[in-house]
């Protein structure tokens, strides 16, 4: 009955051999990215860790990159997929520049492009395992959006990925307001990153904060947050506790 068996083209994603060509789970991952709008543009923070499961394998990973003239992309999740996305965006920006028509892709357009890319990969059951934060400012218009690995996207005044959604967003909802100064914005981001450092086991104490304004993008040198471990509740944590907690 050989004529009945359908033959797959070599590059199809169907059939048992193809399973090895699809993303099943992430290997080297970055943790939360947190970002907010402030008076002059967008501030974004991410630590520099690349975890390999529970091992902290890489400690110098830059998870935020400038895209074109007006945008800043931060990523959590699989680092190799982030690098692939940067390659796609390189091509996108290159084509945009080659038109040489005085026009350039703004953050809204880049966010839309990324959303389409993530959604299309999800449709093919071969996702890019990332949660992306895309921020920027063009012609005075600030923009901050996010897109997940299955294509869920939205924009807001402050966004976060992963654990940031649980720990940072509530702080931002309480303390963010329109027209934050640069210093206040950094203080607020550091507050969020400190909580993440205390409570997210994949977070490391080496972070960068990136700023994007009409003038351009700058990213800080890596630095550490001051932490305090002398809280009395942390001393003898098991005293009086029944069981393993």
């Amino acid at each position, binding site marked *: 009955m050989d004529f009945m068996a359908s033959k797959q083209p070599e590059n199809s994603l169907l059939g*048992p051999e193809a*399973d090895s060509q699809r993303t*099943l*789970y992430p290997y080297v991952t970055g943790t939360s990215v947190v970002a907010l709008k402030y008076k002059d543009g967008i501030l974004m923070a991410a630590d520099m860790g690349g975890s390999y499961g529970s091992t902290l394998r890489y400690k110098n990973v830059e998870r935020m990159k400038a895209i074109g003239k007006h945008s800043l992309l931060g990523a959590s999740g699989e680092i190799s997929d982030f690098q692939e996305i940067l390659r796609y965006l390189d091509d996108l920006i290159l084509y945009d520049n080659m038109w040489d028509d005085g026009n350039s892709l703004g953050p809204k357009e880049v966010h839309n492009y990324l*959303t389409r890319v993530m*959604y299309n990969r*999800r*449709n093919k*059951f071969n*996702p890019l395992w990332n949660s992306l934060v895309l921020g920027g400012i063009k012609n005075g218009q600030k923009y901050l959006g996010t897109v997940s*690995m*299955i*294509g*869920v*996207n*939205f*924009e*807001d005044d402050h966004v976060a990925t992963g654990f940031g*959604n*649980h720990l940072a*967003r509530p702080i931002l909802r309480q303390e963010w307001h329109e027209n934050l100064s640069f210093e206040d914005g950094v203080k607020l981001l550091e507050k969020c990153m400190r909580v993440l450092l205390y409570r997210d086991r994949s977070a490391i104490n080496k972070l960068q904060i990136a700023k994007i304004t009409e003038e351009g993008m700058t990213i800080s040198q890596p630095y550490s947050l001051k932490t305090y471990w002398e809280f009395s509740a942390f001393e003898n944590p098991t005293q009086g506790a029944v069981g393993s907690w």
Partner: protein
Amino acid sequence: MAKQQANWSPYDNNGGSCVAIAGADYCVIAADTRMSTGYNILTREYSKICKLADKCVMASSGFQADVKALQKQLAARHLIYQHQHNKQMSCPAMAQLLSNTLYYKRFFPYYSFNVLGGLDNEGKGCVFTYDAVGSYEKVGYSSQGSGSTLITPFLDNQLKSPSPLLLPVQDAVTPLVEAEAIDLVKTVFASASERDIYTGDKIEIVVVNATGIRREYMELRKD
């Protein structure tokens, strides 16, 4: 080694409720603006309503990425229609297009629960309600989404239309005036927000009538 099972789902439910009510010369379409995932709120200000044509508005809840893709598909098809026919699509025509578009992905559905509202060719209000794979029907009012189980019985009580099985065929549109219908919508969402955790933050209300399309908002519980 046993075959690997997927540890990710291509679907998510981003929650929310949608309602539409048809009147003699207007149509009210409303949806809340909360977008959630699991027990988290992603954002409080996301619009689930999309204007597809001059007299045709769609509200959709479910999986946001699929909803967005569906809206884009319909907008693109509408543009082509306008190029080919030199006119806007009527609401009943868009209703059929939406049904076909949904069924096209019958075996990997758009996880999108839609209500389509607008004015038909005679200027009378019409509402079409859908399931995720395109099954649809013209009704006098409808609700979809996470709060629909709470909203529909209330609308049934306030707006109950005569049975579509009766002869002669009776009109399903409500005799209510536009202002009364809007008030009903606000009441219904306020009630749904009390008990449905995915409904809340704000309602976006869109009214389509002979003068055009207008939008208004109302605050809801943020918890």
